[in-house]
Each structure stands twice: as structure tokens, then as C-alpha cells.
């Protein structure tokens, strides 16, 4: 029972982590919270459902489709909801936040019209593959989710720390003006960041669809809030923090159900965040810049 619950917690935590990675990337560079991230994640899941169920295409096509569509959505988000507000006289620093909230409401309602209000099952034979160890059933999807989240974290860490583009990104995060004076194409860097973050949201969407077999237009909101809580817990803009924060939240939620009352599932998880913040206000891995 303990091992089964541990697997449940790790699966949930890995999904939280992937969602939070997208949040933290955008926050690290732009210093804003992208409230539309949850809805982009939801769209990724729906694209996956459409491609696998309606078109009967294989799973890798679904992944590719979701990544492409969410990347395009990321481009549109940056181009029309964020860029016009940057460096404008008299625009409040809260404006981009409000603008992303607007986008999230738009996307949620759009998905209502496009996909309908109900729950969509995610049918793919891949999600059915499982191993039996004793009385424990492990699904391949659960392992894949865990592995993907670790790989994404490692790739992001490497990319930010070791590559030119990553350095440009960190320079942009440090100081936009200075970076652009030093020859960094900040416009392109910011655009890239938002696109990559959105595509990661799309990947997370498909993974959730496969793991829980449930895709609804409302899933973006709760996942978005959890992702937000995680980056506060892990430290704003920190990649390792997002990963660890996600796992902590996933495990905490699962074990509250095991040893406590499932009614307090959300409450206890967020209570833990308040306590950690009281002890370490900057979050577990909080630094100014992401590494």
C-alpha cells in the first residue's frame, strides 16, 4: 500500500513539476506570473485527445501536435498580450499579470465552445500498458511521466547554464536594458522563453490526459494555481525548486489522503507552503536568477 501510494504521489508530483517548470521559466526571465499557463496546458491535453481519439493517430503525433499548437499559442500570447505592454509609459507592472488572466479566461471559454463542457477520455493503448509486481500495478505512463519530468529539468538546467542561448536568457533576466546593450536580442530571447514554456505546458497536458484519463476545460485553473504555489514553494524562477516543489506537493497531497482526511487534501498542501515560506521566505531554492 505504501509503495503504491508513493508511486501515486510521485506521478502527481512529476506532473506538477512539469507545469511548474513552465511557470518558473517565464517568471525567471520576465518577472511576471503567466496565469494563462494552466489554460495552455489544458489546450495541450485537448489537442492530444483530438489527435488520438478523433484522428486515431499514434501517440507521437499527438505529442508533436500538442507541442506545435501550444508553441504557437505561446507565440501569440507573447506577441499580443505581453509585448505591447512592455516598456510602455504609464503601464502598471501588474498589467502583464492581468493581461494573462484575461487570456486564461478567453482560452477556457474558447475550449468550452470548441470541445464542449464534458469530460473527454484519453484513449490510447499506450496508457493501458502495465506491470504487475505482487499486488502493485505500475503503469508505464507513470514511469514515463517521472522520467520526462527529470529529463526536462536536466535539459533546462544544462540549457540555461551551459549554452549561449541560456546565457542570453539569464542576462536578459538579470537586466533587460544591459543585456540588449551588450548585443543580446532580448525580444527574441523573451519570445523563445514563452514559446518553450508553453510547449512544456502542452507536454504536461498530454501526460495528465494519459495518466488520469480525464480532460476538461476546467483542468487548467486548478493546475495553474498548484503550479503557482509550487514556484513560490520552490523559489521563484528556480528550475530545481520547481522540480522539488512539485514532488513535495504531489507527495504531500497523496499522503494526506493516506494518513489523514481526504477533505484536507488541498488545505494541508498549501499549509505546508505557508510554513516553509515562514522559515525560508525566498522559497527552497530561491535566488534572484534561475540556474
Amino acid at each position, binding site marked *: 500500500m505504501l509503495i*503504491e501510494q508513493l508511486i501515486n504521489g510521485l*506521478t*502527481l508530483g512529476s506532473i506538477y513539476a512539469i507545469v511548474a517548470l513552465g511557470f518558473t521559466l517565464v517568471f525567471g526571465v520576465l518577472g511576471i506570473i503567466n496565469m494563462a499557463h494552466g489554460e495552455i496546458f489544458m489546450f495541450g491535453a485537448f489537442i492530444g485527445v483530438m489527435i488520438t481519439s478523433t484522428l486515431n493517430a499514434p501517440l507521437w503525433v499527438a505529442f508533436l501536435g500538442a507541442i506545435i499548437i501550444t508553441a504557437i499559442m505561446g507565440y501569440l500570447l507573447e506577441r499580443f498580450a505581453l509585448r505591447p505592454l512592455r516598456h510602455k509609459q504609464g503601464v502598471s507592472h501588474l498589467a502583464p499579470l492581468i493581461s494573462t488572466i484575461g487570456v486564461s479566461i478567453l482560452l477556457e471559454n474558447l475550449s468550452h465552445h470548441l470541445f464542449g463542457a*464534458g469530460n473527454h*477520455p484519453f*484513449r490510447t493503448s499506450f496508457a493501458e500498458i502495465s506491470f504487475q509486481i505482487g499486488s502493485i*500495478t505500475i503503469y508505464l505512463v507513470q514511469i514515463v511521466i517521472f522520467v520526462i519530468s527529470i529529463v526536462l529539468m536536466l535539459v533546462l538546467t544544462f540549457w540555461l547554464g551551459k549554452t549561449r542561448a541560456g546565457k542570453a536568457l539569464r542576462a536578459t533576466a538579470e537586466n533587460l536594458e544591459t543585456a540588449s546593450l551588450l548585443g543580446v536580442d532580448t525580444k527574441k530571447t523573451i519570445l523563445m522563453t514563452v514559446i518553450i514554456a508553453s510547449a512544456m505546458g502542452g507536454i504536461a497536458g498530454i501526460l495528465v490526459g494519459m495518466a*488520469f484519463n480525464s480532460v476538461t476545460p476546467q483542468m487548467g485553473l486548478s493546475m495553474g494555481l498548484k503550479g503557482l504555489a509550487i514556484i513560490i514553494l520552490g523559489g521563484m524562477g528556480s528550475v530545481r525548486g520547481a522540480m522539488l516543489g512539485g514532488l513535495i506537493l504531489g507527495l504531500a497531497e*497523496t499522503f494526506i489522503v493516506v494518513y489523514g482526511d481526504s477533505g484536507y487534501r488541498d488545505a494541508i498542501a498549501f499549509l505546508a507552503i505557508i510554513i516553509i515560506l515562514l522559515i525560508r521566505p525566498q522559497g527552497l531554492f530561491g535566488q534572484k536568477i534561475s540556474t
Partner: protein
Amino acid sequence: MRQVLKKFVGVAAVSSMLLLSACGNSGDQTSGSEGGKVEADIGVVSFLTGSGAAYGEAIQGGLKLAQEEINAKGDVKINLIFEDSAGKQDQALTAAQKLINSDNVTAIIGPTLSTEMNVVGPEADLSGVPIIGTSTTAEGIPQIGDYVFRNSIPEALAIPASMQKAVDKYDVKKVAILYGNDDVFTKSGYDTMKKTAEEMGLEVLTTETFQKGQSDYNAQLTKIKNLNPDLILASALYNEGAVIMDQARKMGIDVPFVGGNGFNSPEVINIAGKSSNGLIVATPWYSEKEDEKVQEFVTKFEEEHGHVPDQFAAQAYDALYILADALKNAGSSDRDAVKDALAKTKDFEGILGNFSFDEEGDVLMDPTVLVIEEEKFVEFK
């Protein structure tokens, strides 16, 4: 000779139609005159956007179909005015007030959720507007006042009926309960389940909760699995319920589930597929019933919406017919006359079955218990 007769019948039919339409025109304002048809504005408050928009869609579909048929028959002419409540109490109240005061409707159908009815019901009762809930199954709804009715079977009647049959058949001793604790509807279903389980002397191994829109139930289900219940009582709406069953079956839980009213929808099968086998629900609505009216409704609804109507559509459909019946009997669109006529509804033969209101405006009818077998709802015996 035959030719002449045919012609005569034809002419008679045409002239009577002309006569009827003439009556209709003159009767528009002075509704209720002898032989003229009653015209009435009916307000609908429904959950059209947001997490429960699927219910609103079904209800709207059922009402519109009934409206077309009733208006085509010509005894009563009904105009429907739809307002969205978005599942929120305050918005439902505003919508109802608008319908009562500025649109001056004869009666209201809706709102969708029992929570909404708890605020809209008293308001309608105070204003003297008859109101019929088509999906409000929580306890105490018709008791709000004389003007408040419902044609949705209360959970307090449906759940014990299905539990009794399941317990008898599977020789159940131990149960686990799972319910959504952030909704009056699923909470009230849980209260009934708990009470019924106690009365039947069943051992409740654990009580787990979840919230609307949650997608991961593995933690709760793993816990339930390890306790080995004979039966799982799940008070959930179908969107969550179907996913719960899917995750439970994947985990290796193969005991039957007993669900409340919100769990009873063909969508469960669409979403959960073969995992939905073994779900037992009591229902006022059975779309496979061998009844001409039922099959006609199902065919028409399917043509328009592409799927089989669920109970929300069926209950809304019947509610408008009950209301049309009352309007006809009242002979006018006066709110009080309609209320009195509604209260007298007895042995109404709708698609749900033989229907009457009791003295409080609550439902009197027998539910059918269904089980999903091989991805189909069949009668549970």
C-alpha cells in the same frame, strides 16, 4: 363518391385550420378565452456556462424539443426565455429576478443546482411565481413554499432503492463511501448513503472525499482498494464519477459501484468505456424503455444533438409538458391559476413514467434501477 368525400374532408381541414389560426391571433392578448389557446412566457434559469454547462446543454435541448412539439399541437403557446446562472447562487437569483420582474414570466423552470434553488425558490415563492426544478434533487426543495415544485426524483428515494437491490444481489457486508464534499448535491447524496448504510447494518470501512474538477483519485482509491469493500458507494457527478471508475478499474478494484442521480448519464459509458461496467443507479429516466413516447423523444433528440438524451434532458422535457398541461387546465397564464393547476397534476403520463405531485409539490413515482453491463445500461434485477 370517394373523391368527393376526400375533397370535402380536405376543405374542412383547411377551413378549421384557418379558424384555429384566427383564434390564435385574436387570443394572443386575452389569453384564456374559451377555445382560444393560452400563451405564456416561461423563464428558464439554467447552468449554461462553466463547469456544469453539460447539464445546461441537456436541459436546454430537452426544453426546446418539448416547446416545438407543444407549440405545434396548438393548445398552448409557450415562449421560453433562457437565462444563464453559471451554477452560481447570486447569478441565478439575479436571473430569476429579471425573469419575474421585467420579463413578467408566468412560471420558471430551473435552476439547475439545488444550491441555486435554495436561493431562487424562496424568491419565486414570495413573488407568487410557480417554479419547477427539473434537476434539483436535494432534500427540502418543494418544502420551500407552495409555488415550488420539482419533477426530479429526490436522492432520498433513488439511492436507497438502488442500494437495497445491490446489497441483496451481491450479499454486501462492507462498503466504502466516496463523495464530493464541495457540492450540496453530492453531499446530500452522501448523507442518504450513510443513513441507508446504517439502517441496513452495513459496515462503512472508510469515507473519502474529493473536490470538483479534480483529476487524480488514485490516492483515495488505493486506500479503498486495500480495505477490500464488497461495494463502493460513490456520490459523484458523472464527469468526476466516470474518471473515478476508470482509475479504480485500472487499479484492479472490480467491485460494483452504487451512484446517485448525478452519476446517472450515458456520458459515464462514453468517458469510462468498459470501466463503467458494474455501476448501479436508480433512475426516473431509462432511454431504452419500450415506450412509444420515450423512443420518439430519444430519436428526435439524437438527431439534433448527436447523442442519447440523459435524465436532465428528459426531466426538462417532461417538466415543460407538465407545465403546458397545467396551463391548458388553468385556461389562462395567470400565475396563481397555473400554480393551482400544477398542484393538481396527477397520473401524468410523461416519458419518465406515471407522474404525480404530492401535497408538497414533490415527486410521486417509482424509480427504475439500472446497471451498466457490457457498456450498456440495462435493468438491474
